[in-house]
């Protein structure tokens, strides 16, 4: 059901862990839906010098967070902002249709961490990052109950 790349990132996640003195922390998803992603970024001169993640979720949730960290590490904040869920899916060689929401969550987790970074630096993140949706399960009953 999963590609080799997904299984590789699931079994050998890159950049898993926390950053104690992170410059930005973002968390998206919720326990009720079965996935939570938390991203930590360390920023120097507008470049993401370090990034770590922690994920509670299925195989593709872990794999998408892992590859997303690789895709933004060493890149500028602006480049990280451009990372789309589509690029994440492509980098993994595809995801099953019902797992696409995991890649959206990964994109949102990065955006949430960037927002937190801007906020901490006294910059209103919304004009730059846009609105972060807590959960993309718009058809998910358990999410809309909350």
């Amino acid at each position, binding site marked *: 059901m999963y590609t080799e790349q997904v299984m590789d990132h699931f*079994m050998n996640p890159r950049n898993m862990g926390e950053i104690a003195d992170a410059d930005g922390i973002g968390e998206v998803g919720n326990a009720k839906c079965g996935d939570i992603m938390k991203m930590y970024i360390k920023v120097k001169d507008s470049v993401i010098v370090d990034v770590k993640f922690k994920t509670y979720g299925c195989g593709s949730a872990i794999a998408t967070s892992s590859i997303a960290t690789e895709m933004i590490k060493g890149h500028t904040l602006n480049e990280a902002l451009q990372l789309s869920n589509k690029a994440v899916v492509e980098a993994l060689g595809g995801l099953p249709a019902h797992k696409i929401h995991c890649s959206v969550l990964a994109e949102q987790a990065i955006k949430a961490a960037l927002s937190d970074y801007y906020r901490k630096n006294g910059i209103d993140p919304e004009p730059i990052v846009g609105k972060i949706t807590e959960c993309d399960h718009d058809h*998910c009953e358990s999410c809309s109950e909350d």
Partner: protein
Amino acid sequence: MDRFIYADNAATTKLSKSVLDKMMPYLTEEYGNASSLYNLGSKSKQAVESAREQVANALGAKPREIYFTSGGSEADNWAIKSAAYIGAKKGKKHIISTKFEHHAVLHTLEYLKKQGFEVTLLDVHSDGVVRVEEFIDAIREDTCLATIMYANNEIGTLQPIAEIGKICREKGILFHTDAVQAIGNVPVNVVDDNIDMLSLSAHKFHGPKGVGALYVRRGILLDNLIHGGAQEFGRRAGTENTAGIVGLGAAITDAVNNIENKTKITSEICSYIIENALKIERSRLNGHPTKRIPGTINMCFEGIEGESLLLMLDFKGISASSGSACTSGSLDPSHVLLSIGLPHEIAHGSLRLSFSEENTLDDAKYIVEQLYPIVDRLRVMSPLWEKIKQNG
């Protein structure tokens, strides 16, 4: 990684070699149509009828009361719709069932609701067992059918079938039970248990896939399922799946004769796992601790998600299943786990292990050994686990 442990026998089982041997002639040289007059045909006919006798004997029924189907889901659909139509003719359009039936039952009931039937789904409480008093309370003047599973497919809990059957018989309510998970795991006797209709499926007890049976007590008029031929007493047309039916007959005979032996092996395995895996902090056994079929256990590990757990177990050669949303193919975790009151976030971390007599205590030890580091590893990654720990 050479080890392979199949621990998903509630999903399906391995076809037994002796069953396959008995099926082979009907897949090769004995290819006659059971409806044909000549010798080749009548040999197939004899094989089908002898399998019907075997299924009847296994259930304490009569051969005339056994209808072959394509499996458990078909048997459930057929039984429930037939009983509903019988009820409707008498102006009775109320059905009692439970919240944690298989979807073959629940979705059929949904369909009947659209046709004007009313359905009461009984609570199964935190132990996954229906209460007889609540069943009695649910009975109405217009109740035509009760359909209650013998043993639950996800958590393995056994229901008070004989008691409910007795009440139904007294009240003139038809009683159907989905016994797909029970056959071969516990003794089932349709007379002692006061069962009017019963569904079973061959591949759950080392028989072939694509064949099952519906028991219907003599005197209950089954609706025609497939029109166009005299097969299955004129109720289900179509040339018989002779090899499959022969396989079902052989498998059910072996299964009921082997219950004691199987119970001995699987209870030892399950006791070991329950005792040792539940030492993992924040884990639990789902369903009643004793009112259960011996070979199925369902556990939850807080802070982790079931699909990840399954993938890692698979990597270690262990085949199991989970009721998490990701594995149920929907966004909600299994309706069975929700029905016993588990919150979504705990139900997502469920693991079902189901064993057969082919498993060993060594398998159990290996599973527990692998489970510890896997649960740890997923928890280290999990921000939810972090929160659980912070909140104590």
